[in-house]
């Protein structure tokens, strides 16, 4: 195996263009389906080959939809199609159906079967089924590095001979073997007929039955034999595959029964089990032939880590501590940068905009729109870019390391008690980053009931967009307990999800709860590069949101705050009036003022907007006070030095978090908390108790519009969103009520 350079197989747009300009050289486009077991590295492989940034993670079920990547290799356009990982081509999970429908109906030119070399037998079970399709196959023997490390010797030549397909060792994470793989693919398309995979023999009794069924299909249903691979279809009919039966809908099925009767009798089993056994027998035989394992098995790192992490007594504390550490680090590392951006947008940017608009002789109201509306609105949100990226970074790390699957294992019992699945835990955990991808990730769940229930609970997972609101309030009231207060909100979300889950399980979702069968992948150290790429891919959405519709909403809010024209007081503006109408409803919760109510209204669109609106309502008066205007060079110098300061503070926080003695240290956090105008105003308007009730309300009160759209897309109906909306409004009100009134009774008000 040799290393090959990145450039060899990246997207070569320049080449593509010249080919288009020169129509003489006809370019072929070939379609290559990438199929394999979950977590075998399919997406990583495609990313390595085509330079794409498909979502990867070290847990089974990352890819849930087919995705494609187009690139050019030696004069051929290759379309790589990333399929969801599957263990089999049975009709029981959505992913399996997506993968096999693609393979059967779209008829790709080549299948690249990504096989996890550390797990040959189970992976080859799928290979055996792929070969039934009669499409040319190339095997990418991936994760070859780990197999070598374990001391496995795999005889790829023997494998090629037995299967009749090329077998190429690859290490997708290190871009090794890619060139050979591409050569093998193009070889096939240059001479297809020579690369028909071998027909594997499942034993004489099965083979004779299948040939009877094949003949029958050809005789009585010849149109089917054109549409489907014959051998595959025959097997599916024998297995009574519900999905295929429905699709082809043949009336007279007695010939199938006849052909399989003696098999069922001889094995005393149903046909599905007989076929699974037969296929595994082939896979096992093949594995025995080609794989040599070392005599002594070393205790592996994964085992050592799991001994501690999944320990009976330590498992749960470690899980909770890990979550706490993630939030603590997220906050500590990012806070100085957030403050820096805050100072920049409130200071230099604002001043520059004023200067520019002044030169342009813009009317006063446009200056106000630009500074109070746009710069303040977007600025307040941009402040949270560092927090969100830090959070995404840690989530990416958890995903890449393999801890996600352990979390599902540790939490399954608790999940199960609310009618869920340990795997529901994964979308829910993703929900801490952003609820939107979390709703899509519910596809890892096999049954619609789980999906719906999980999606209903996801909005209780406090997403990154809510952080800005917490940050402002915590910064104003709870600087001494930053980590703890933040942690309490997340834990509250989880606890309420448990409660609601139990309620839903007893009401909307009566009936059987689903199965939990999940592979635990080995721990892996994600590379720094891939951490950065996937953190960026996740965080990017927030930036785009800030740039587009948060911008639009900031403008809208500005207008709502300044219309009808010439309102003297914000209170009489449209938004203010809305706030005034709603405020009495919020009064029992301790924040029945129109300012808070108006902010909450605007937050229906996206929760981070709450902060932006508060900024617009509260801050202007305060900000006008510092009149001394520095020069441009002074501004730039100040930006530079304060950024350096932020880096230093961030590093100091990081160190103090790990120096466990100062876990809740006041000094380091208080120093970096400079007074920002919004925090000061909020301090006057709220008490610690009402502040806490308010952020609780923000945590709970409803999923944002984008989640609504995602839910609608996933379920094809507004029903689930409607239910989520209704129960969350009630829940938010009740919980905030209990906190505020309870707190007052305890004399905290």
């Amino acid at each position, binding site marked *: 195996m040799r290393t090959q350079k990145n450039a060899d197989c990246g997207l070569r747009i320049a080449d593509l263009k010249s080919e288009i300009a020169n129509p003489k050289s006809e370019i072929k486009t070939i379609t290559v389906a990438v199929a394999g077991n979950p977590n075998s590295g399919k997406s990583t492989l495609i990313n390595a080959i085509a330079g794409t940034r498909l979502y990867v993670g070290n847990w089974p079920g990352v890819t849930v939809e087919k995705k494609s990547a187009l690139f050019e290799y030696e004069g051929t356009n290759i379309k790589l199609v990333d399929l969801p990982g599957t263990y089999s081509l049975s009709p029981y999970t959505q992913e399996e159906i997506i993968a096999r429908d693609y393979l059967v109906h779209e008829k790709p030119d080549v299948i690249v079967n990504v096989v996890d070399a550390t797990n040959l037998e189970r992976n080859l079970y799928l290979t055996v089924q792929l070969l039934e399709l009669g499409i040319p196959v190339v095997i990418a023997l991936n994760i070859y590095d780990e197999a070598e490390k374990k001391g496995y010797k795999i005889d790829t030549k023997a494998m090629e001979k037995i299967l009749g397909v090329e077998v190429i060792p690859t290490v997708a994470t290190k871009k090794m073997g890619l060139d050979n793989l591409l050569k093998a693919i193009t070889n096939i398309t240059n001479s297809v007929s020579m690369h028909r995979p071998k027909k594997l023999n499942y034993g004489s009794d099965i083979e004779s039955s299948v040939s009877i069924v094949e003949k029958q299909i050809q005789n009585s249903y010849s149109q089917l034999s054109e549409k489907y691979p014959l051998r595959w279809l025959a097997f599916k009919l024998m297995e009574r595959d519900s999905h295929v039966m429905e699709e082809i809908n043949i009336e007279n099925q007695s010939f199938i029964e006849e052909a399989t009767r003696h098999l069922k009798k001889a094995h005393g089993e149903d046909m599905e089990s007989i076929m699974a056994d037969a296929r595994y027998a082939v896979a096992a035989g093949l594995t025995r032939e080609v794989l040599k394992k070392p005599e002594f098995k070393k205790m592996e790192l994964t085992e050592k880590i799991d001994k501690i992490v999944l320990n009976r007594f330590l498992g749960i504390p470690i899980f909770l501590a890990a979550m706490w550490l993630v939030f603590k680090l997220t906050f500590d590392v990012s806070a100085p940068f957030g403050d820096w951006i805050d100072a920049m947008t409130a200071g230099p940017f604002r001043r520059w905009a004023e200067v520019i608009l002044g030169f342009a002789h813009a009317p006063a109201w446009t200056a106000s729109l630009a500074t109070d509306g746009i710069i303040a609105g977007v600025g307040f949100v941009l402040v949270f870019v560092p927090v969100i990226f830090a959070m995404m970074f840690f989530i990416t790390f958890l995903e890449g390391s393999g801890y996600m699957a352990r979390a599902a*294992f540790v939490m399954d019992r608790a999940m199960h008690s609310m009618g869920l699945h340990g795997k529901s835990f994964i979308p829910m955990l993703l929900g801490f980053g952003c609820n939107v991808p979390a709703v899509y990730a519910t596809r890892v769940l096999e049954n619609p009931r789980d999906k719906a229930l999980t999606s209903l609970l996801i909005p209780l997972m406090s997403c990154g967009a809510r952080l800005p609101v917490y940050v402002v309030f915590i910064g104003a009231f709870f600087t001494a307990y930053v980590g703890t207060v933040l942690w309490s909100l997340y834990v509250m979300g989880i606890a309420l999800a448990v409660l609601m889950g139990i309620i839903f399980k007893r009401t909307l979702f009566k009936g059987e709860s689903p199965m939990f069968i999940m592979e635990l992948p080995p721990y892996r150290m994600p590379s720094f590069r891939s951490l950065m790429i996937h953190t960026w891919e996740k965080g990017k959405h927030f930036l785009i949101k800030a740039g587009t519709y948060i911008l639009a909403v900031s403008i809208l809010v500005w207008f709502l705050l300044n219309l009808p024209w010439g309102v003297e007081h914000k209170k009489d503006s449209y938004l203010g009036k809305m706030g005034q109408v709603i405020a009495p409803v919020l009064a029992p919760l301790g924040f029945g003022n129109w300012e808070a109510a108006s902010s909450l209204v605007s937050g229906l669109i996206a929760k981070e907007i709450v902060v932006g609106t508060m900024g617009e309502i509260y801050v202007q008066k305060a900000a006008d006070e510092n009149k001394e205007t520095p020069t441009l060079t002074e501004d730039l110098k100040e930006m530079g030095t304060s950024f350096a300061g932020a880096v230093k503070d961030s590093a100091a926080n990081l160190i103090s978090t790990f120096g466990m003695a100062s876990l809740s240290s006041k000094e380091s956090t208080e120093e970096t908390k400079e007074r920002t105008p919004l925090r000061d105003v909020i301090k006057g308007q709220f008490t610690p108790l009402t502040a806490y009730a308010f952020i609780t309300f923000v945590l709970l009160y409803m999923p944002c519009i984008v989640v609504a759209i995602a839910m609608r897309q996933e379920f094809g109906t507004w029903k689930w969103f409607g239910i989520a909306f209704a129960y969350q409004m009630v829940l938010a009100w009740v919980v905030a009520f209990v906190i505020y009134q309870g707190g007052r009774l305890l004399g905290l008000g």
Partner: protein
Amino acid sequence: MNLANLKPGEHGKITKMGAMGPLKRRLMDMGVLVGEKVKVEKIAPLGDPIEVTIKNYNLSLRKKEAEGIEVEVVK
């Protein structure tokens, strides 16, 4: 004797697959077959699910699912 009865560290050999329908098919697709050797590795901190090694990889499943898998203890 079924798989849920085995203690962590114990080995077993599958003698019968009791579960029916999709669950059985799913288990079989993941290599849980009659005649296969399994080892129970761990029980989750809250008592369920369990983790087993089968066909050289780690699989977790709930006790309720493991109950459908008949085993005999192997030394």
